[in-house]
């Protein structure tokens, strides 16, 4: 084995071992979890999954809620950010620098500090326990990143293309639809997947805005299960929940990894 292979192996172990341990635990009986001396063949069970899927509300509900919120957020963000980025890309150079700094500042902001005021807003406008309403703050929180990526994409387009489209008689909407949007598709895809992941992973706002158990998003549901009882947390069941909850995310990341990487890369370069 070359020295590099050892490092690669270590890297993989470091990255994957904790998740693999969850996988192993999810199939382990409650007894085996507390008794490492138990023989190998007596350790395995599907009970954890069975218990998980028969909870009330059923586990898949949380996955559904998270998917719904994430999809709505992504849609809302893109609908607002794409025209905005188009407009920002046309700003005279004088304004661009300061605006970009402001947007980058918002992107760096630890949004957890906003939760109290946002909660107040939720209470005032009855936005709590509403999966559609929560996409509004989510959209706002992911907007800075979306603006950075999409504005850069529009700025990278040659000016001639839009000029030629104008002379062909295309209105603004037509230019966006037939020429500009197709050309920024890679950046849009990267933005979409990054916003989607953000919405899925978000915790403080979801924790305070959602309390009805059938409306919880995945992170909140998992935290609730974890905090439900300190002494007899059913780790096996929890591990099963982790596995099931993780699968859609892992699949998403693996499928869209190129978009994720290019999105973060471009974001870094422009930032």
């Amino acid at each position, binding site marked *: 084995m070359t020295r590099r292979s050892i490092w690669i192996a270590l890297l993989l172990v470091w990255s994957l071992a*904790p998740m693999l341990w969850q996988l192993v635990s999810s199939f382990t009986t409650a007894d085996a979890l507390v008794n490492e001396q138990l023989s190998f063949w007596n350790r395995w069970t599907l009970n954890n999954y069975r218990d998980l899927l028969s909870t009330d509300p059923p586990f898949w509900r949380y996955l559904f809620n998270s998917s719904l919120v994430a999809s709505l957020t992504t849609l809302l963000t893109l609908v607002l950010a794409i025209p905005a980025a188009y407009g920002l890309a046309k700003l005279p150079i004088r304004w661009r620098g300061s605006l970009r700094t402001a947007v980058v500042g918002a992107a760096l902001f630890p949004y957890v500090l906003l939760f109290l005021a946002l909660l107040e807003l939720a209470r005032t406008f009855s936005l709590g326990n509403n999966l559609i309403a929560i996409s509004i703050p989510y959209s*706002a929180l992911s907007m800075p990143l979306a603006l950075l990526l999409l504005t850069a994409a529009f700025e990278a387009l040659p000016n001639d293309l839009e000029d030629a489209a104008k002379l062909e008689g295309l209105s603004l909407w037509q230019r966006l639809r037939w020429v500009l949007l197709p050309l920024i598709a890679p950046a849009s895809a990267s933005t979409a997947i990054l916003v989607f992941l953000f919405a899925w992973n978000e915790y403080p706002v979801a924790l305070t805005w959602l309390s009805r158990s059938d409306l919880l998003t995945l992170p909140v549901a998992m935290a609730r299960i974890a905090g439900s009882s300190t002494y007899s947390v059913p780790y096996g069941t929890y*591990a099963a929940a982790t596995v099931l909850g993780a699968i859609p995310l892992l699949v998403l990341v693996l499928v869209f990894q190129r978009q994720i990487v290019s999105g973060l*890369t471009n974001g*870094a370069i422009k930032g």
Partner: protein
Amino acid sequence: MTVLLAVPALLLIAVVFGWPMLRYAWLSFHADSVLTGLEPVANGGANWIRLAVDQRFWLDAGQTARFALISVGMELLLALAIALLLHQSWRGRGAVRALTLLPWALPTTMMALGWRWIFNTPYGPIEVLARTIGLDSLDLLSTPSITWLVTVFADVWKTTPFITLILLAGLQSIPDDLYSAFRLEGGTPLQALRRVTLPLLLPYILLSLLFRLAQAFGVFDLVQVLTGGGPAGSTESIALYAYLNGMRFLDFGYSATVMLAGFLLLTALILAGTLVLKTFGVLRPLDR
């Protein structure tokens, strides 16, 4: 003017980011808790005075800063090493890069209980491993001076891939020609790392540093679920303290004060850091 198209998006950002700050500023000068019937009543600077002598707050602030600095420091070093590894070309690199990205994909709270189990005394795999080697019980999650390191570990595990990607982008932006020229000048690979790679990587390192420091300062998800702020409040962060004040003690006035103070501390930290870096001339490569 096409820039008007940007108004909805910018307005949304301004409201969601700006309004809370203004609200906190206002609330921090009011008492708003169960004692006032959950209505804000002006109380001058009472909240701020209380904050100034609040031992728990300053303890948390120190712990949060310590967590952020150590965590981000380790992430940077680790990410740099991983990025250098992933920058070379070898078979299967793409697949490995994808796999190393996975920790970042999972919500913090999801893995938090997992970590609680992994480090569980006496049943978790780490404990079992320690016993097999012959060590005493490690008690990682119930020893106040050690537990915060577990949170650091969990944070490093999750966010290193993110920094790795940013540093990789930076590595890819360095033209190969520079390394060739350096070699012809007689430089060794290690010297190249120090004299070519690191200076050119600086903007990316600083970007990651800034971003992660701000995020880490607001650590909430991890400590709430993994340790609940314990043992004995040793892992409690500013954000968690603010949350407790607001949601459990229902003292909104003070909670707002804590959050605003946290924000101000973070800004001070960043400004101080920038000043330090400037004094040591570290930022000079950035002057274009």
